[in-house]
């Protein structure tokens, strides 16, 4: 495993000068993932904050080959590139010349970066199809729990109680009224070689997982809780800390599923109350005003407890 110093000296695949917000978790995640390997990487993104903020023509922040086609197809897009790479390699193995711009000795890597909207909702079909077919790629979900690019609309990754512009808190409704879906478990249920959850606030966890995933010749998936100061309405400076709080409250446990083996990567010494994670975030502020809000927070805590115990059981931690 690479040390921090080594990682810092590796190539910068995503350069500065992009227009993501101050404190945005997305470029932090992208950089950590891409510094986890020395192999050539081709990246694909779907429509979303990362895409619109890093590639405003005629500029680009990408120092590696990168493509965007549309919103709901990051997985199909990366699959097409991988399919072409494999096709050219197979032909070369049969004696046809490999194009001279492809290094015959290198192991090309294929990474998709997609938002939670592009992954949990509109892109789930494309993702499910691509992992079932077994393409070799790492799919990183930049999960900021809402459609941020279009102005903070709810997604199926949005937690209960969250205020978004399509699940607004009002005099009757307390923000989103449903729990989020467990996409990591859904993808793990495809029996793929590797699925995991991580956060940008623990670089060692994320880079280790990315490095591991990128060594696998098959579909791999990392769901990264990626703070969005604008949509979460929290201080840009606390991006790493707020993601750590999600882990310490067990709202976003760090775990991995490797060839069907579930493993907890981190158990907080003391499981913090969910309120500690909710309080710094404006998207939950309305829940701290009255009894109704307190009731929603209670249900949220119960859900976190239930999912945490379910995960511990899956990981054999009873």
């Amino acid at each position, binding site marked *: 495993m690479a040390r921090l110093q080594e990682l810092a000296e590796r190539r910068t695949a995503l350069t500065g000068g992009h227009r993501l917000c101050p404190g945005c978790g997305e470029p932090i995640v992208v950089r950590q993932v891409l510094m986890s390997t020395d192999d050539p990487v081709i990246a694909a993104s779907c429509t979303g904050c990362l895409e619109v903020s890093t590639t405003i023509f005629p500029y680009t922040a990408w120092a590696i080959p990168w493509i965007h086609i549309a919103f709901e197809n990051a997985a199909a897009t990366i699959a097409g590139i991988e399919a072409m790479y494999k096709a*050219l390699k197979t032909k070369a193995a049969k004696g046809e010349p490999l194009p001279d711009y492809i290094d015959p000795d290198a192991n090309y890597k294929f990474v998709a970066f997609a938002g939670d909207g592009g992954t949990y909702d509109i892109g789930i079909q494309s993702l499910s199809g691509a992992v079932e077919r077994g393409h070799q790629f790492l799919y990183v979900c930049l999960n900021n729990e809402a459609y941020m690019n279009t102005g903070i609309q709810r997604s199926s990754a949005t937690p209960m109680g969250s205020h978004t512009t399509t699940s607004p808190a009002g005099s009757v409704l307390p923000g989103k009224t449903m729990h989020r879906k467990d996409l990591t478990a859904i993808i793990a249920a495809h029996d793929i070689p590797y699925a995991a959850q991580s956060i940008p606030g623990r670089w060692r966890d994320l880079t280790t997982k990315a490095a591991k995933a990128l060594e696998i010749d098959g579909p791999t998936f990392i769901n990264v809780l990626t703070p969005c100061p604008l949509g979460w309405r929290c201080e840009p400076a606390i991006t790493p800390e707020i993601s750590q709080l999600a882990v310490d409250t067990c709202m976003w446990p760090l775990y991995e599923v490797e060839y069907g083996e579930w493993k907890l990567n981190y158990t907080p010494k003391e499981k913090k109350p969910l309120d500690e994670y909710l309080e710094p975030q404006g998207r939950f502020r309305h829940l701290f005003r009255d009894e109704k809000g307190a009731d929603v927070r209670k249900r949220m805590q119960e859900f976190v407890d239930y999912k945490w115990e379910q995960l511990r059981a899956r990981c054999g931690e009873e």
Partner: protein
Amino acid sequence: MPQVEPMEGNQAVAEAMRQINPDVVAAYPITPSTEVVQTFAQFVADGEVDTNFVAVESEHSAMSACTSAAAAGGRVMNATSSAGLALMWEILYITASLRMPVILTVVNRALSGNINIHCDHSDTMGARDAGWIQIYAENVQESYDNLIQAVAIGEQADVRLPVMSCLDGFLVSHSYELLQVEDDDAVKDFVGPYVPRYPLLDVENPLTMGPLDLYDFYFEHKRDQWAAYEPAKQAVIEVGQRFGETFGRSYGLFEKYQLDDAEVAIVALGSMAGTAKDAVESLRAEGVKAGLLKLRLFRPFPAEELAEALAGLKAVAVCDRAASFGAQAGPLYAEITSALYTAGVSVPTVNYIYGLGGRQIAPDEIISIYRDLEQVAAEGQPDQPLQFIGVRAFSKEEHADMYAF
């Protein structure tokens, strides 16, 4: 040795794909193009091609993966129909805008609702503004020949555009004809090796593709794209000629059948042209100066050439096998009349909507169109520029009867 074999349209398409041996095929089944995908999958299973066949979970993913595979740097093919093409719609524009020469066979089929699996051209007509080249075949041989030419046209350096090679669902896709199958090597030579331009797999020269492109540059990019369609038209002509020199069957933008001395003529796309040729023959035997213009290239639309070919006629019927709801006429008619007007050619024209959802058009009906045209020619203009042919008009009582079960 080239061989003559009985084949269905779909098999002929799959056979051409086998000979072309593309690098990636990402496809999804839908009637009536399913057999293309199935037959090709069998070629893959039997090791007859080197293609990486990706059996995607939807047409949206099919066209997404085809586009990115082409961007990676290689030859890509696919086949679909109707709802499948409709599901690709968003991506079709992107494939063309990224200038990826993906080759898509479209076996034409009506769009839903109600659901109908049979032929009309509403699917490809709906995609006519997406930036793809569109070539239509009359029969099985043309379906095979057009697909081979499509590769050479789309991949030409000054074109670099995706191509839809269209054939009529069931009428051609499931009809047996004697097909002249050319030698594998001759077909491979004709299409040549794939020449990548700016491949994404070139990691030494990293490229950002599909960026955010706002009002300061988007318009120029669209204008640049516009410039590709004149070379595309030239490429269709040149490749069609080269095909003739190589295989003995030449192609152009359209086929003129008994047109040069004709007084009344039909313009049609696809398999209807075959039936119309018979009608022309029987009318000619009676002394009627009937002719046919079978359009092959619909996109880019050869407006000037068509206006020139139709100038001097006394009346023209444009046959549309597509519904274009709310428009004043069918899409082919709208294009043809616009071409005539722009060229200052004044010919009385009538639009016939026919064959929706696979309704057959009979030789008698085509003859009746020519008879109408003679009337129009005599009077100088039609009393009804939009006509439906082959459709029944039910009375109130008949309607009531139909639902009385």
